[in-house]
Each structure stands twice: as structure tokens, then as C-alpha cells.
């Protein structure tokens, strides 16, 4: 063998450095995989398996429990665009024998209303369904803006799919929706695409930086607590009402819904029936309480004349039960047909009417709230919002006595045109910051009449006037 003829000056090889670095790399590779190996969900599955083995009463049961595979589980709901891996750890959700067991293995009651094989978990509970560790899945982590809703607020999620007014299972949410209109939130805030522009756009807010339930509660109770320079007055909501409004806000973080789930969004209720009855123009041909067209028969007591089956068939496909009828096919779904029947039952019982007929004063009051007049003229129209250096005592004037100073026509003009320039208290002083905008472009003649009726109704009765 030829000997290696190296010059005596041959440099030394860095073998030691090499060995050390190679060792370090090996340690790092092992460390990298160890970091991956222990997934949290594995340990939950292992303890569940141990629990199952302990609960097994026969040899066979225990054998089956022991063979229980340790594997990730998930519910994929393409129509909701969710992948929920919650059941990888919450292993007792569909097993009634785990009722009362502690988390994470507790049984989920009311399984049949929204079977979670079909709906997943996060559509109601929120949280990060794809995550496989408790902290990340429950979603209280940075960069996840839909953390799990506290149980008391889960009702909000009903609103993601169902109209709250149709949904007897979400009474507090329905109250929130009602309150939103009643309290005139829409006067200043935009929601679902319409509303005033004085205050933050709630659609934007909810889709951009959603707030936590705690923040929202605080906001409704006392806005200044969470937004120090908020211009929003304290409306004096009760805690229950604040919660109702909070639920409404949370309900707008709706997931996209399509297909089967969208078709199931109609809940069977008399309210839904009434809405359909009005929207489809049934009154054009059918009479109720003597009002309506005469092409079809009156419907006051139709539920006593026809069976439920006949009515459903009639709504689903009129010609199938009455060949040659002129009634058009409205393509009602099963749920819609049932809703119409529920509505007609209540008509028969005389516990519901087709239209609400509020008084002009009541309509005016609703407008007063809806257009946010209360933001400046006060919750009871008694004024009091500061307006520095304005001639009306440095505050937005009270409206209680407008009946004295204005005729109906004058008052309508004033609302139509507004007060673009408020008179100054001190002529040399600063311009008062608040001026009344004109509402002529937004209110119809009839609505102006209603508003004036409301304002005139504010005038105290004779015996309350103490001059």
C-alpha cells in the first residue's frame, strides 16, 4: 500500500470541532422531535382509556377499552367551513353515562337538537376548533379573535343562523334585538348595513376587532368605563338588558352558512308564519278579520276546516290538493308551511293580528329613538347634553314644551331643515360644537307627522303644569 506522502507542514484537520458540532446537531434533531412528540390530546385520550378500562365490568368490556385507539378525531362541516377537533379530548360528549363527569369528559346534553356530528362544536361555542391543545382550542390566545363563549353567552350563537324573533329558545337574544331598535342604538350605530354614522360602525367593529363579552357588558352599563371619552350617554340599562344587548353583539360574529344549514335556519313559529304571510302577500287574495282580497276563501278559521296534512300539502304544492286552483305555488318549505299553520291557529284563537297598528305617537316615538334624536336631546327628550356657548343655556334644548312654541307645520320644517347654525350665547364666544342636522332627506311626510304627534304628546297634561 502506498504510503500517504504528506508534506510535514500539512495542517491538522478540525476533527474535534467536527465531532462536537455533529453531536450538537444530533442532540438538536432529537430535541426537535421530542418537542413534537408529546401532544396534549394524547394524554387526554390515554386517561380516557384508563377510565374506560376502570369502568369496564366484564372482561370483554375491559378488553375493548384497552384496544381503544389513540387517534385524533375531528368533525368537518364543509357548509360551515369548520374543522372541530374538540372531540379529540372531549371524549364523553356523546356517551350519556358520562353525564355529570368532570371536564374534559363530560356528556353534552340536548344532543339531538343540534347533533354535533352534523354541526360541530365551534358554531355554537366558538373557540379555535382546529387546535389540538386546550389553551389554543379554547381560543384565549393572541391572534385568535373568537375565544370560547362563556356558557351563559352561548345563546348569542343562535343568532348566527336563526332570526332571534323566530326563536323561542333564545329569548334574551330576541330581547337584545328588540332593545337595539327600541333604545335607538341604530340612530348612531350602523348594524347589518344600516344606521347612523355618529358612533362606531358596529359591522366594522365586529368584523375587525371583536370585543369580549365582559367588555360589551361594561359598555352597555357605563360606556365611559371602557371608552373614557365616549360620547354615548348612559342609558341606564338593567344588567339583564345589558346582557341581552351583549348577546346581540356577539351573535353578529356569524359564521358563513350554506347548504343544509342555511335551509334549516327557518324555525317553525307563528312569528315566522306571520312574516311569511305578510311578505308573500297572502292578504291580497285571502281575508282575515274582514280585511283582504276575495279571490280565495277567508282564513280566520281555516284551521278548523282543514286537517294539518291537507294544509301542509296545500302550501307545499297547491295544485296537488286542489287541481285547477289559481293559488300560485310559493315553493314553501316544510318548516315554512308549518309556520304558516301555527300562525293561522293563533289567528283562529284571536291571539295574533296580521299587522301591528301602533298609534301615530308610538310610531313617532320609535322614529325619535331610531334616528338617534336621544343622543342629543336626551333619553326622555328633556335635553341636557352640553353644547358650549349655545343660546339655549349651553345645552341641547329640551323638547317637552315644543307644543307651545311651534305649530305642526313649523315643527315639521324645523325637523326637515334642522338648525345648521346654532345661535351663540356670547356673540364673541366659540361656535357651539353641536348643530342639528336636517332629516328631510330621510323622513317621509307621514313620518314627520308621526314625529310631531309624538313631540306634541310630550307636553304635560293640564294638571301637571305648575306655573
Amino acid at each position, binding site marked *: 500500500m*502506498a504510503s500517504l506522502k504528506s508534506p510535514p507542514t500539512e495542517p491538522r484537520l478540525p476533527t474535534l470541532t467536527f465531532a462536537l458540532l455533529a453531536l450538537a446537531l444530533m442532540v438538536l434533531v432529537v430535541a426537535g422531535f421530542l418537542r413534537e412528540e408529546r401532544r396534549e390530546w394524547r394524554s387526554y385520550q390515554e386517561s380516557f382509556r384508563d377510565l374506560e378500562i376502570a369502568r369496564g365490568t366484564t372482561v370483554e368490556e375491559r378488553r375493548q377499552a384497552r384496544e381503544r385507539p389513540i387517534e385524533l378525531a375531528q368533525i368537518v362541516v364543509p357548509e360551515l367551513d369548520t*374543522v372541530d377537533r374538540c372531540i379529540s379530548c372531549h371524549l364523553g360528549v356523546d356517551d350519556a353515562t358520562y353525564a355529570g363527569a368532570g371536564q374534559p369528559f363530560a356528556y353534552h346534553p340536548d344532543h339531538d337538537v343540534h347533533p354535533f356530528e352534523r354541526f360541530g362544536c365551534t358554531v355554537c361555542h366558538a373557540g379555535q376548533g382546529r387546535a389540538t391543545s386546550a389553551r389554543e382550542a379554547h381560543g384565549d390566545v393572541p391572534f385568535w379573535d373568537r375565544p370560547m363563549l362563556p356558557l351563559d353567552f352561548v345563546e348569542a350563537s343562535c343568532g348566527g343562523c336563526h332570526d332571534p324573533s323566530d326563536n323561542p329558545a333564545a329569548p334574551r337574544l330576541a330581547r337584545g334585538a328588540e332593545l337595539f331598535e327600541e333604545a335607538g342604538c341604530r340612530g348612531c350605530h350602523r348594524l347589518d348595513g344600516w344606521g347612523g354614522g355618529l358612533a362606531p360602525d358596529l359591522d366594522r367593529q365586529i368584523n375587525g376587532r371583536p370585543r369580549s363579552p365582559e367588555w360589551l357588558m361594561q359598555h352597555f352599563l357605563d360606556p365611559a368605563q371602557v371608552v373614557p371619552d365616549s360620547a354615548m350617554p348612559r342609558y341606564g340599562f338593567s344588567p339583564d338588558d345589558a346582557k341581552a344587548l351583549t348577546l346581540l353583539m356577539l351573535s353578529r360574529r356569524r359564521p358563513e352558512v350554506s347548504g343544509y344549514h342555511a335551509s334549516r335556519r327557518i324555525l317553525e313559529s307563528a312569528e315566522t308564519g306571520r312574516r311569511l304571510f305578510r311578505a308573500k302577500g297572502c292578504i291580497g287574495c285571502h281575508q282575515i278579520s274582514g280585511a283582504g282580497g276575495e279571490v280565495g276563501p277567508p282564513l280566520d278559521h281555516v284551521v278548523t276546516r282543514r286537517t294539518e296534512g291537507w294544509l301542509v300539502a296545500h302550501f307545499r304544492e297547491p295544485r296537488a290538493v286542489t287541481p285547477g286552483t289559481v293559488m300560485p305555488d310559493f315553493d314553501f318549505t316544510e318548516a315554512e308551511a308549518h309556520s304558516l299553520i301555527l300562525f293561522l291557529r293563533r289567528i283562529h284563537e284571536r291571539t295574533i293580528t296580521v299587522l301591528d297598528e301602533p298609534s301615530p305617537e308610538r310610531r313617532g316615538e320609535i322614529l325619535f329613538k331610531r334616528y338617534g334624536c336621544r343622543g342629543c336631546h336626551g333619553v326622555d327628550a328633556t335635553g341636557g347634553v352640553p353644547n358650549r356657548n349655545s343660546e339655549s343655556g349651553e345645552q341641547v334644548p329640551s323638547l317637552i314644551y315644543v307644543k307651545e312654541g311651534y305649530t305642526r307645520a313649523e315643527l315639521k320644517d324645523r325637523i326637515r331643515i334642522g338648525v345648521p347654525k346654532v345661535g351663540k350665547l356670547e356673540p364673541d364666544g366659540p361656535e357651539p360644537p353641536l348643530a342639528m342636522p336636517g332629516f328631510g332627506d330621510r323622513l317621509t311626510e307621514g313620518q314627520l307627522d308621526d314625529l310631531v304627534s309624538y313631540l306634541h304628546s310630550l307636553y304635560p297634561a293640564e294638571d301637571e303644569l305648575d306655573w
Partner: protein
Amino acid sequence: MNPFRRFWQTVYRSVFRVGIPKTNLGRAQAMVSSFLLHLHPAKVRRDSLRPTRTFGLGLITLYLFIILVVSGVLLMFHYVPSVERAYDSVRDLSFVVTAGVLLRNCHRWAAHLMVVAIVLHMARVFLMGAYKAPRQFNWGVGVGLFLLTLFLSFTGYLLPWDQLAFWAITVGTSIAAYAPGVGELTRFSLLGGNIVGQASLLRFYVLHVVVLPAAAILMIAVHLYRIRKDGGLAHPDEDQPTVEEGEAPPPQKSYGLMALTESSTPYVGRDPGKEVFAWPHLLIREVLLFVGTFSVVLLLAIFFDAPLEELANPIHPPNPAKAPWYFLALQELVAHSAFLGGVIIPGALVLALILLPYLDRRRVGIGRWFARERWLANGTFLLVLLALAILTVIATFFRGPNWDWVWPWAAGG
């Protein structure tokens, strides 16, 4: 010899023609007869092996690129370039893919490191005056690789489709729009529209995984080839050749085999003492450097998770929206003057880099760190580098909402 062993020998020899070399001839042949090794010279200058000569920066950059290609291909098995699924597929890397986070972390940190390494490599070459003839063209190729690296990083930045990605790319591409004439068109064709959307994601994806890596691989091949053809690493002898008594004159090209091995020339056994065989002296150092580079990337990947913010939300911009850090100096310049900072200065810098070797033709200070004769060139270069570093630091830590000045310690939360 039993038949099995003989068969094995045949196979082995057909793959490794030389085997483990035991003679100097074998050492030289090992290098020239292997496809993977033949880009190396058979012998290298002994002083080129000293760590302080190059700090192995070029090779580190290459290794980072290789790590990026491998980890990138693995990531491609999981990633879906659609706005509906991109973010979820990246999230799932950490939730369900074995070693998925590690993979993404490796890719992320290797990318950042590569930007750093390539800048340092350029600085090394500059400060040694190694861009001078005959290496002018290779310096230009290097500048091209530098720009490609930035663009590769930038296109990769969008792919996770989170807030960070979305707004950094929105900002980055609007810088491109400042170029006169072609700016708007560049931005439009890059994004496939006027705003960052599905078309942009797909374009960035294709650029990131096919077009730019292919271009980079081609240019790297040219770059390495030219290193060999241009005579290996620059060394001080290039401006003052010294030949010691009794030694063979240094070869013009480092791969001149005749000058190295045993033969019948008068210089047998007296080859330049300045050189040693690449096998094993160069090779072991190269492998060592790879082990070191990979270790550092793994270390970072194990201890620091690559950021992933909320899903991209086009109606909710963060304030301020910042470009990726390697473009922050540019963003800071643009904040002062869109045209001057966004077009003139960066354009002039790139042009100056490419033209530099053709303008600075004095054959002095080649292959030496901070040669005194080159104080003006080196000083200017360091000043520009320092200025860019300061701008980057300002933009990173001292810029708050609306790009207003903030003190990082006063920002609070």
C-alpha cells in the same frame, strides 16, 4: 474474494470511481472525477481555509438556500395557496402535522438568516476588494442573487395569509408603485389586481416555489462555476505575486492538475507550499460548516416559533403597517420622500453595486481585509451599510401609528 464481495466492489466502483483516496493522486482524482465535488479545485490555498478569511459566509448562504429548498418542498405537501385555505393549512402545521411547526420555523428562520448571511457575504467580498478583475462579472451575479434572495423572502412573506403577511405585502407592493412610469404596472401585475387578493396569493406562490428558486439555482450554478474559473478565492498574491526560492510558480488557475501531482516536471515534490489538498482539508470544513449552519437553524426553530397572526382582514389595517424588516429601511426612506427614497436611492445603490467593479479598477488591496489603500471605498461602503442599519432600526423600533416617532420604551403596550 467471494462473488458477492466482488459484485459489491463493482457496484461501488461504478458509483465512486476513486473510492476513499489514499494517495495524493487519488485525492486529486477524487475531486475531479465526481460530479458533486468537481466544482472544487484539487488543491486549495492553505490560507483560504483559515476561518477569518471568509468566515464561510458564501457557503453558509448556499447551505441556508439548500435548507430552504428542502424544508420548502416539505411545506408544499401541506400548504394550499387559496385565500380560504392558506391560513388554516398553516395553522394545521402546528395543530396536526408531525414536526410541522419545526418545519415552518426552520424555513422562516433560515430565510431570515439567508438575508443576513448574503449581506455579510457581500460585505466580506467588498471589504477584501474581491470583486476586482477577473471577478467583476461574478460580483454582478452575486448582486443578482442578493436581489433574488430579497424577492424570494418577500414573496414567501405573503403565503401564511395572516394579518402580518397581508399588510406587509400591501405596504411592500405600494413602495414598488412609486417607480415612475412602470411602478403602477409592476404593482398591478405583481398583485394581479389593485389589492392583495387570491390572484396575488397565487402569483406570489408560483414566484416563490417555482420561478424564483429556479432562477436562483441557475444563478448559483453560474456563481460557483465562475468562482472556480476566476481562480478561487481572492488572495493577496494577486496584486503582489511572491514566489519563494525553489518553489514552483503558483499556477494561473487553481485546477492545473499537472502542477500538483507526481509527474515528470522539474517541480515534482516542490509544489507551492501554500496549497493543500482539497480532500480532506476543504471538504471536512465544508461539511463542518453545514453541520454548524443546520444546528443554528434548528436551535432557533426549536426555541422560537415563527409568528402567525390573525387571518388576513382587508378591512382592518394595523397601524402602522410595516413591510418585512429587510425592506424597512426602504419604507423609512419612502416615508420621507416617495420618489427620492423609493426610487432614486435604492436604484442608485443597486446600479452602483453592479457597476462598481468596472469603475474601481485599481489592482490594490485584493484579498486583504480592510486594505489601507482602499480606505475610501471601504469607508463609503461601511457608511452606507451603517445608514441602512440605522434606518432599519428606526423603522423597526421607533415608528408608531401613522409612522410617527415613538420611543420604544414609552410605547407601553
